[in-house]
């Protein structure tokens, strides 16, 4: 489904991604883990070209773009096949929950308003916000806002949804409701790439975890195996730092 090959990215002289290869199969849920500054967000943003890679190629399904010299059309194709859920929700503040979800359907997909509305209501109900469709973002809690963000992505029926730390801006008591929604849509077989610091979530939901450090993938594999016995020293250290409970791994 997603094929990233030899993705590099530099900000000025700072090389943030050092040639990343990553394939994600249809229906697969991949969790990307790694220390702060390792390039997880940057990699995710390269997939839909919110960040332009310095080199390599990105492909989602049939859509393919050269990292350094993409055409406008290629970028558009990639964005039509993907959707993103942001750390800070990034909802359109002048639009209601319903309008946030409808916007892409009506403006980009050119779906007739009535149909788009019905679809949007359905998706908002699915994320548990059926009662809040007319609320503006400023009237919603963080958890509710993020669920609108998820609904906005889901309504587009993309081939893949990209999540960038969807719960890390939330108050602890709101994390659960959002993870629950993501868990549920993961079960429906939607392809997902999730950057997260929630180890429990990664272990339970992901089919595969990918560890990044200093702009490179250092280890990847089945979550249960990797959490139980990581091969790389840096993965071990990272896991030790991030999992306080001693009896966390299986």
């Amino acid at each position, binding site marked *: 489904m997603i094929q990233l090959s030899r993705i590099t990215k530099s*900000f000025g002289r700072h090389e943030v991604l050092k040639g990343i290869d990553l394939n994600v199969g249809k229906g697969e849920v991949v969790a990307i883990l790694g220390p702060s500054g390792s390039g997880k967000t940057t990699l995710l943003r390269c997939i839909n070209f919110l960040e332009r890679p310095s080199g390599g190629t990105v492909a989602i399904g049939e859509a393919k773009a050269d990292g350094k010299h993409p055409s406008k059309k290629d970028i558009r194709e990639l*964005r039509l096949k993907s959707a993103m859920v942001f750390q800070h929700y990034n909802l359109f*503040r*002048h639009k209601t929950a319903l309008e946030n979800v409808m*916007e892409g359907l009506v403006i980009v997909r050119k779906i007739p308003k009535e149909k788009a509305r019905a679809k949007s209501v359905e998706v908002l109900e699915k994320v548990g916000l059926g009662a809040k469709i007319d609320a*503006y973002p400023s009237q919603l809690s963080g958890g509710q806002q993020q669920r609108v963000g998820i609904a906005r992505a889901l309504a587009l029926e993309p081939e893949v949804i990209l999540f960038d730390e969807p719960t890390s801006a939330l108050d602890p008591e709101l994390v659960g409701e959002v993870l629950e929604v993501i868990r549920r849509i993961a079960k429906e077989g939607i392809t997902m790439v999730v950057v997260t610091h929630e180890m429990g979530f990664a272990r339970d939901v992901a089919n595969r975890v990918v560890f990044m450090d200093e702009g490179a993938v250092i280890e990847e594999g089945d979550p249960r195996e990797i959490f139980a016995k990581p091969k790389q020293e840096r993965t071990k250290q990272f896991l030790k730092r991030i999992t306080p409970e001693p009896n966390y791994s299986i």
Partner: protein
Amino acid sequence: MPGAKFDIHYVFDYFPKQLSTLSLTLTIVGLSILLGLGFGFLVALPRLYKVPVLQRVSQVYVSFFRGTPILIQLFLIYYGLPEVLKLFSVDVTRTPVLAFVVLTYSLHAGAYISEMIRAGVTAVDRGQVEAAYSVGMSGFQAFVRIVLPQALAISLPVFANLVIATLKDTSLAFSLGVMEMTGKAQTLITLSQHFVETYIALAILYFVISFILEKIFYVLERRLLKHERQEAGAGTGRRFGWRSAPTLRNLLTGTTRGRGGARARDGRSEA
């Protein structure tokens, strides 16, 4: 004290006489603001998109029109522009004074409007634009659908102040002999020598128009910013309330009122 003895009747008497010139005053304001919006957009764009040379040019334009008295701008354009145009053998001697007046006011308003647009656009956090891109919108769609409506709503209090300031500034057009409200007042004074009464009538007129404009903008603002209102009771204060709106000059000297974006802003580069 100069002039004739005070007689309140003149206030009532002159009121309708001055009112007859109201339409000219409002025409100057309307045309100037309309053209000013055009200039403002043209001038704001190179600065928003950091176009190398044009960016400097628009900076100079803005500094000039904000940094010099409007009366001098009126004179410069009325007396100076024809001289300049003469060099290109364009003859404007038959052009009505009003055209120069409107040109000056719109250039003046344009300088403020360009700053207003710039402040409004930068106040909409980058994350929303990225979200718009991520659902597949083009740059143009993101600007028109997401950034502009919010930028306009944010700018409305500043815009309201600008319209009212322009209304008051039109009183200087009489110095070029334009018969708007203040010009009319001057002739009435010459005729009757009733200074105070005439100016009282004039002041009331300006005040009433400003007051009405204020109310209209207030209603508009509440409409446009309804999405920032918290649910009843949960309010964190009226962040963009009319009363808290700083004065035009304060605001336009560059203080943008940041909103929401503080924690949502990522400061990342665009694709």
